[in-house]
């Protein structure tokens, strides 16, 4: 069982489809979860449909959505690191590594979850994963937590193969669906608005398993 989990992702909503069920499952088993969200996703194009947000209000709206998602999952500790959406690949790498290093030192996590650098499509995803593995890679091997990564680029299987961690989250679909629905400015999944969506077979098949690659340090 994981005791302390640190999640490092760049945008509010990066947690909902890929890891919210896994986190709810670990939390039900007693884990303490800290979610470090690097930006507020303030450059997103989705503003609700019809639009209810604008470039001025979006950061606060997305912050509220993120807090609601964390409550739905049961995440005990949310940290907003205050970087800017779309800029992480251009940020001062030492500053990024310093912030992540401080969290590692404070929390001493047994498991870290982030994006697989180079295989996560959005430049912010890749830059976040790169900063996490760069910072953890500087620790002595015996001090490194396990790192589980999310990957979904078109080319990922050729390079990194199949995931090695499969998590059955079928008993935690209520939390996962509530997490997805929290981000109402960003997503509209019609199936999830039906009655008892967690009992819908299609929903169970689409959302019931979460997949990770364990990062192998050179």
């Amino acid at each position, binding site marked *: 069982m994981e005791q302390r989990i640190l999640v490092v992702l760049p945008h509010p909503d990066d947690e909902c489809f890929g890891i919210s069920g896994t986190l709810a499952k670990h939390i039900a088993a007693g884990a303490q979860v800290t979610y470090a969200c690097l930006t507020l996703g303030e450059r997103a194009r989705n503003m609700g449909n019809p639009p209810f947000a604008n470039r001025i209000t979006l950061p606060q709206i997305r912050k509220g959505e993120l807090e609601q998602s964390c409550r739905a999952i049961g995440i005990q500790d949310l940290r907003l690191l205050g970087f800017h959406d*779309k800029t992480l690949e*251009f940020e001062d790498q030492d500053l990024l590594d310093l912030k992540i290093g401080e969290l590692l030192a404070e929390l001493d996590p047994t498991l870290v979850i982030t994006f697989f650098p180079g295989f996560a499509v959005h*430049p912010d995803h890749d830059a976040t994963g790169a900063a996490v593995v760069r910072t953890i890679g500087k620790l002595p091997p015996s001090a490194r937590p396990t790192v589980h990564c999310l990957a979904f680029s078109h080319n990922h299987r050729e390079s990194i193969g199949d995931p090695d961690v499969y998590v059955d989250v079928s008993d935690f679909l209520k939390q996962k669906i509530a997490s997805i629905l929290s981000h109402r400015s960003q997503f509209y999944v019609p199936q999830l608005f039906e009655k008892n969506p967690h009992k819908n077979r299609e929903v169970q098949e689409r959302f019931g398993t979460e997949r990770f690659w364990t990062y192998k340090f050179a």
Partner: protein
Amino acid sequence: MLPIQTVEIQNRIDSLKDQDLYIHLELTTGAYAAHNDSTKHPAANFITNALIRYGLGSISGNGPYRVGLKMDKGWIYAEGLTHYDETDAERLIMAGHDSSGKLVVALQLSREPF
């Protein structure tokens, strides 16, 4: 204009940091976007000769390229850049052209107004 060479662009970005600069930043889908394809939403903007200053900047990606410039209180960002003007030693003139050669995005920096 030549296809972007990232080492050359990075050197020029570094040589222009920490000083007042005039910027031209532009994005356009073209005025005929919706006429040619009704699913497209025509949009465009530009800002010319705004005065800016950045302390950190880089070019990223495998082409088309992205550039981010970190200012004291904000960011300048452009995605989709493909070409630069190799003949202009003083100014950094970059643009992104689509497969038919049309300009989609431009990012230009200069010590003197455009």
